[in-house]
């Protein structure tokens, strides 16, 4: 029987142990499945557990490795995939009642690439219904129930990749896959105290994934360290004939030695004292994180985001595309089966928006991209708090618990920029706090290098929720 701390090793460490034949993929998979059986229901972390498939893949990995065939650093490492990625013959619920029994006959490209890399699919992780693209106002907006946070089950995991965040934090998987339209990787990473990478738009194929918004959706890893995010990104990134938006930009994300003094960071200040909902403990953790970046050698300079209505543009694009995406559910009335009481009314609300408004927003988006490209001519990375408060209580509306804006997220998602969420301390009731680093397009390599440097000097990413130690 494996020691409990094995389940909290990073994917990189698990992979090293497996390749060194000190850890059996079968034993590891059985151990994770046992933990999922014991802990996942209390967290609403999984939509489907694929035990038979996982054990089959684990046996195959074990045989291959024992024969000396190593597929790569994730060979034999078990993971969970957000339940909006298609998996052949396995339900893909999109977290929503109307699509509860949906089964696809093909794997999403990301699932196929991870299988080719030798990773083991433990199951489909729970998510907010339709990834929240019709909006959601309460944590309970999910077919699988509200995502309960491993650090305190009465608090929310964040969304929409709720189960992916919870499963990584609780040691139920080696790593997980999440997706982000606006905030859905960074938010659960922040609230669950794990490391999440939102890649550049087009870096990872979305083929076989639920569409929330064609021009905003991204797929990326949620894991225990920046090093893990790098390994997963390398396995899943790259052009894909099945997704015309997946770019053929070279995937140069290998670790590099950097002269940190030459890296210029724009610190986007937040007023923790005056912003409604902001918590001073999170502010203190953020200050400490900025201190760590300075100690690494990064040149941190306070800066303002460009004067541009980024929130309005990104929000207009998202609303318009999501209403079109989910049109079928409005037409056949099944939108009324969603948990969120406001979702069925979104089409009517959106009728005030015209086609010209959408095109205008997309033209403004180009200006926003150019503005940010100029900004990144002066800076290499933006540093900002990921959230201004810790995970909110499970029963509160977001209007009440998360009343502040997300300007960095609006620019980042609107322009398709990559960002990494790094645990940076603890706030109220011992809940995790998080810092985000946002880079220019295709510059995940810098974010990962800086993330690793940050995590060599801090240990917040290695902390475990006390209730899930065993």
């Amino acid at each position, binding site marked *: 029987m494996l020691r409990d701390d094995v389940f909290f090793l990073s994917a990189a460490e698990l992979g090293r142990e497996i390749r060194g034949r000190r850890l059996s993929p079968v034993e590891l998979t059985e151990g994770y499945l046992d933990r999922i059986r014991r802990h996942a229901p209390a967290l609403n972390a999984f939509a489907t557990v694929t035990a038979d498939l996982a054990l089959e893949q684990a046996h195959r990995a074990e045989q291959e490795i024992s024969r000396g065939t190593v597929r790569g650093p994730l060979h034999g490492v078990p993971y969970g995939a957000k339940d909006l990625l298609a998996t052949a013959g396995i339900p893909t619920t999109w977290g929503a009642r109307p699509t509860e029994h949906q089964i696809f006959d093909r794997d999403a490209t990301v699932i196929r690439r991870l299988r080719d890399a030798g990773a083991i699919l433990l199951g489909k992780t729970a998510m907010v219904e339709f990834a929240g693209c019709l*909006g959601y106002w309460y944590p309970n907006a999910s077919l699988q129930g509200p995502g309960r946070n491993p650090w305190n089950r009465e608090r929310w995991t964040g969304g929409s990749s709720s189960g992916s965040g919870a499963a990584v934090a609780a040691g139920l998987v080696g790593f997980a896959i999440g997706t982000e339209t606006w905030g859905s990787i960074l938010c659960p990473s922040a609230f669950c105290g794990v490391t999440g990478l939102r890649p550049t738009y087009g870096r990872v194929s979305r083929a076989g994934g639920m569409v929330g918004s064609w*021009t905003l959706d991204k797929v990326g890893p949620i894991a225990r360290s920046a090093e893990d995010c790098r390994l997963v990104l390398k396995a899943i990134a790259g052009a894909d004939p099945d997704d015309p938006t997946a770019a053929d930009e070279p995937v140069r994300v290998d670790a590099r030695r950097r002269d940190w003094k030459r890296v210029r960071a724009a610190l986007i200040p937040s007023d923790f004292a005056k912003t409604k909902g902001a918590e001073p403990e999170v502010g203190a953790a953020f200050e400490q994180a900025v201190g760590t970046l300075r100690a690494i050698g990064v040149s941190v300079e306070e800066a303002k985001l460009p004067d541009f209505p980024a929130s309005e543009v990104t929000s207009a694009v998202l609303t318009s595309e999501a209403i079109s995406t989910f049109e079928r559910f409005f037409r056949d009335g099944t939108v009324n089966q969603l948990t969120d*009481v*406001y979702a069925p009314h*979104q089409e009517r609300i959106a009728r005030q928006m015209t086609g010209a408004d959408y095109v*205008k*927003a997309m033209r403004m*988006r180009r200006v926003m*991209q150019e503005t940010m490209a100029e900004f990144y001519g002066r800076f290499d990375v933006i540093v900002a708090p990921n959230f201004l408060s810790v995970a909110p209580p499970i029963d509160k509306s977001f209007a009440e618990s998360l009343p502040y804006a997300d300007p960095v997220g609006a620019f980042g998602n609107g322009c398709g920029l990559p960002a990494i969420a790094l645990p940076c301390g603890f706030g109220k009731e011992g809940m995790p706090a998080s810092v985000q680093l946002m880079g220019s397009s295709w510059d995940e390599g810098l974010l990962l290098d800086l993330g690793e440097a940050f995590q060599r000097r801090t240990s917040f990413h290695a902390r475990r929720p006390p209730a899930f130690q065993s």
Partner: protein
Amino acid sequence: MNARDPKPTAMNRRRFVHVVAASVAAILAGGVPRARAAAAPRAAAPKPPKPLPAALQRELRTQEKSLADVLKVVRAYDLPPGSEPATLFRALRARRGVR
């Protein structure tokens, strides 16, 4: 049937008479299918939607206003005529050999 039901017998009788009268009129007019339609249960008529709870209506008005505010900003933003959108339409090659 409980005591608070408002005179169900009288209502039913009036309704019955109304339905029979409508049916006879339809048959006399030469349209049996129409007579059937007239005799169809009233439940087939669309029900007016139930009014939404006040709190829900209030929140929906807030959401409606929030989108209106977004659109106000988008519509007021000055762009040069003909400026590029963020995504470009591309022509698609013919699928030769498909026929």
